[in-house]
């Protein structure tokens, strides 16, 4: 046996250990045939090196695996950060980036970009009536349609909710307008969801960029143009013009003021009598909203309610109207005997009805003020009433159960569905005399008016004819079988105190007619009756 101290295998072992230590885990040493203790150490080191190598390989594999996973996670995070999860379109930040790139290209000689801003009309109705998943399905379909109308170089983004934008780099006005119109047409086709057709449309604003404009300005201007499109009756394209800017600024200013109007007690209600035609006796009054604006003077609802609807302020305004009207009703009822048939009419928008807890809020308010529900009637715009909207049907049924009267406002105007008369839980209809006036000659008008009144009567609904201005009109309506009427002939909208005087005397008479009229006449207030109402008469 070799003396261990002089055994050359020991030096080789040292070399092996050095090799292993330097990272070469594949290094091995063959034991000698002696199979002595030194060979046992060699074998042991070989086996340990095997172990070390295996652990190392395993760790390496794990690190590679984790690195791939990390890269994938990073990629998907990036996608999430830049894409809209629902539609797969660019999100606001990616869109801003693309506008920025297009602006930079314009600085290098290309045409400035155009920006299209698209906002779906009445999307909330789809969400409320068909549910949010149906709403999401509509948004996905809209995204697909938009993909079909843009050019390869354009970027479509979803800015949030039902708002989309398209960036068109290096684009002249004509081409941008073509894309916008294609989008408008594509979005006018109803979307089919679960076998049902949901009507869609969009209001579109287009900003043709100018050299030197930044992305934020382009988006803001497209947004302003989009709002103009909404104001123009929706489902149309408007190209931004500098004059729109002033209007938008005023709009923002007004919005800020409106949000403070309730606290500043600038909102008020006026009341217009509703009378029995046969004897002119007052049977109720319609509450009409006014804004006593410090700078603009008395503002009619048409001038600010669309703004309130869009901004969500309508919720506060609507509740204020309910509470104020119920408080007034309480004061009046204290002065009227039970046998006096008097109902206070309040306008509500479809949006308010859809808002959860509306019926409960009304019930609580009535109880708090000890006003019987039968003394209140809600006027709901005919255009808002769809027999296939479960939310509306449900809340109408709740209100009915409460004992509140429900009337279809402006019946016959704007394609009111006949089925609504039959199927909705309502008590009455309000028909505008002006609508009857538009029908041919006197005999034709008479036939039309009678048909309307018969129709309402056939389904057991009381009818109120609005817009009666003269004694002749009153006589004519009466001869056609109308029972109740409203209009300047009986009285303009008056403050609370005046109306109670009228109610006490039983007939509006000259008191009502002499009452204050709002500036600018009457039917100027022909905007939507959203929680406000339009004073009744077609001229003043």
């Amino acid at each position, binding site marked *: 046996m070799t003396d261990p101290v002089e055994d050359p295998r020991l030096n080789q072992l040292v070399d092996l250990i050095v090799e292993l230590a330097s990272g070469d885990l594949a290094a091995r040493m063959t034991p000698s045939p002696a199979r002595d203790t030194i060979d046992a150490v060699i*074998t042991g080191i070989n*086996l340990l090196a*095997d172990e070390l190598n295996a652990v190392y390989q395993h760790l390496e594999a794990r690190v590679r695996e984790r690195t791939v996973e990390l890269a994938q996670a990073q990629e998907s995070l990036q996608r999430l950060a830049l894409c809209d999860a629902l539609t797969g379109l660019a999100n606001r930040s990616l869109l801003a980036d693309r506008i920025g790139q297009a602006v930079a290209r314009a600085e290098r000689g290309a045409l400035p970009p155009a920006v299209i801003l698209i906002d779906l009309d009445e999307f909330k109705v789809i969400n409320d009536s068909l549910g949010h998943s149906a709403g999401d399905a509509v948004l996905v379909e809209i995204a697909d349609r938009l993909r079909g109308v843009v050019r390869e170089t354009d970027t479509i983004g979803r800015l949030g909710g039902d708002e989309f934008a398209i960036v068109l780099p290096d684009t002249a006005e004509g081409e941008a307008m073509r894309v916008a119109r294609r989008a408008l047409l594509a979005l006018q086709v109803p979307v089919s969801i679960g076998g049902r057709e949901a009507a869609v449309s969009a209001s579109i604003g287009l900003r043709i960029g100018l050299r030197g404009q930044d992305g934020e300005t382009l988006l803001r201007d497209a947004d302003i143009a989009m709002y103009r499109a909404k104001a123009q009756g929706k489902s149309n394209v408007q190209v931004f013009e500098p004059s729109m800017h002033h209007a938008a600024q005023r709009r923002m200013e007004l919005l800020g003021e409106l949000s403070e109007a309730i606290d500043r007690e600038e909102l008020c209600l006026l009341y217009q009598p509703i009378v029995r035609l046969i004897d002119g006796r007052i049977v109720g009054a319609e509450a009409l909203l006014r804004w006593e604006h410090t700078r603009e003077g008395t503002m009619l609802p048409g001038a600010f309610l669309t703004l309130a609807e869009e901004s969500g302020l309508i919720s506060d305004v609507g509740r204020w109207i309910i509470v104020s009207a119920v408080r007034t009703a309480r004061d009046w009822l204290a002065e009227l005997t039970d046998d006096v048939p008097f109902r206070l009419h309040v306008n509500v928008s479809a949006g308010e009805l859809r808002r959860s807890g509306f019926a409960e809020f009304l019930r609580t308010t009535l109880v708090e003020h000890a006003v019987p529900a039968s003394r209140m009637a809600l006027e709901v715009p005919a255009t808002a009433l769809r027999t296939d909207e479960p939310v509306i049907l449900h809340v109408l049924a709740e209100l009915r159960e409460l004992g509140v009267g429900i009337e279809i406002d402006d019946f016959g105007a704007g394609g009111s569905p006949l089925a609504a008369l039959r199927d909705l839980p309502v008590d009455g209809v309000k028909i505008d005399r002006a609508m009857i006036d538009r029908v041919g000659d006197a005999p034709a008008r008479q036939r039309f008016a009678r048909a309307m009144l018969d129709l309402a009567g056939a389904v057991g609904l009381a009818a109120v004819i609005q817009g009666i201005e003269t004694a002749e009109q009153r006589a004519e309506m009466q001869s056609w079988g109308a029972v109740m009427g409203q209009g300047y002939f009986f009285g303009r909208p008056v403050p609370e105190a005046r109306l109670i005087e009228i109610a006490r005397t039983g007939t509006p008479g000259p008191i009502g007619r002499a009452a204050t009229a709002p500036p600018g006449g009457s039917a100027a207030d022909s905007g939507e009756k959203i929680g406000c109402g339009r004073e009744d008469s077609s001229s003043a």
Partner: protein
Amino acid sequence: MRYRWNRMPDDNEVMTTAANDDVTVAVVDDVIRLRWTEGVIISEPAARIAAAYVNQLSSDRRRPMVVDMSLTAAVTRQARTVFLEPGAASCIALLGRSPVDRVIANFVLGVSNLPCPTRFFTSETAALEWLSSVATG
């Protein structure tokens, strides 16, 4: 009967001894005798064939086993995993002579969760005695 195969035996073959270039397996006095050929590197395939021989020769019941691993050159990591699989051996005595055998054997023993009692011996007599004591409980 004695077979020299470099292949796995078929399930229905009856043998008392099986062998290839790497290993010889026999049942003697109701003890499975497995002897690795001198200088062999026990790889995973070699270990699997050996295990199959053992299971084939002792297919009727589990028996004690002596594994003579004197003079084996090495045993790979993958081969050691084969020893984790339960087979026909009820207990195993690893038999070696040199310090090298002892190191190799203890690397085998170092595999956790061996399927049956397993120990290293340098004396065949001691090995058989231990097997017998384990077998009789």
